[in-house]
């Protein structure tokens, strides 16, 4: 169950239209290393992980990724909503426009629609956490490439925020990995109470006892 907060995690207020940049940033919405893939990955993996810490980490970060998805959607919308036909044509947004207009559609920057093939839920807690740590690094790289593509501080500030969140999430998954490794390594002790008939040591049935 979720509770929705009607505000963004970090404010997005973009003044300058830039459809070309909107198309690039869309990749963090529905691209291979985007927020939707991240969210679905963590929220799916949480069902089969071990240790309460790892479950909570996957649940919390999967939820936060949905907040990031909302931020990315807002950025793309604000970068493209006031674009005129000339800007749409000149800035290479026309190929997106014919399929989706100015709607926000989960696709990569090159227009490939979102697919669950971007993520894995392997059923092995160690394998899953390694994938999650790699995913955070891939998302961080993507944010850095996007930051290389813009000088507009209205766009760069939320992107820097999102990039920093990837670093924090990497740390949290690393800590979760440690708890899972320790748990799987720990020796489990199964205690079975001694049956009553074995406690009757005063009279074992031998000649002396009798």
């Amino acid at each position: 169950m979720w509770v929705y907060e009607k505000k963004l995690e970090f404010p997005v207020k973009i003044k300058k239209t830039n459809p070309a940049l909107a198309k690039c940033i869309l990749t963090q919405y529905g691209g291979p290393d985007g927020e939707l893939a991240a969210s679905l990955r963590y929220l799916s993996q949480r069902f089969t992980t071990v240790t309460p810490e790892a479950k909570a980490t996957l649940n919390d970060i999967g939820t936060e990724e949905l907040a990031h998805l909302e931020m990315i959607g807002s950025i793309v919308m604000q970068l493209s909503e006031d674009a005129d036909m000339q800007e749409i044509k000149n800035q290479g947004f026309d190929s997106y426009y014919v399929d989706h207009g100015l709607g926000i559609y989960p696709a990569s920057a090159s227009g490939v629609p979102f697919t669950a093939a971007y993520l894995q839920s392997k059923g092995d807690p160690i394998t899953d956490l390694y994938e999650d740590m790699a995913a955070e690094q891939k998302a961080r790289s993507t944010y850095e490439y996007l930051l290389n593509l813009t000088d507009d501080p209205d766009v760069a500030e939320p992107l820097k925020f999102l990039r920093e969140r990837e670093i924090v999430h990497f740390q949290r998954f690393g800590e979760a990995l440690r708890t899972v490794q320790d748990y799987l390594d720990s020796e489990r002790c199964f205690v079975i109470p001694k049956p009553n008939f074995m406690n009757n040591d005063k009279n074992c049935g031998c000649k002396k006892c009798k």
Partner: protein
Amino acid sequence: MYSAKNCPSNCIPYQTPIEPSSLSRAYVPFQIYCSIYGEKQSLLSGTVFPGLYKPYVKKNENCGNCGK
């Protein structure tokens, strides 16, 4: 319990140091909670923890592989 070096006495000791116990494994050290940013600085930094704040610096405006 492990208490961090270069850390004020009020930080929370959390972990024992990682021992190089096993090959073919990745480890991330547990975070040690020392100080935290205020509300405004946390929002601007993207984290409440100074130790985790690692901002991106563009190295060359014209290079396409500046992450390296």
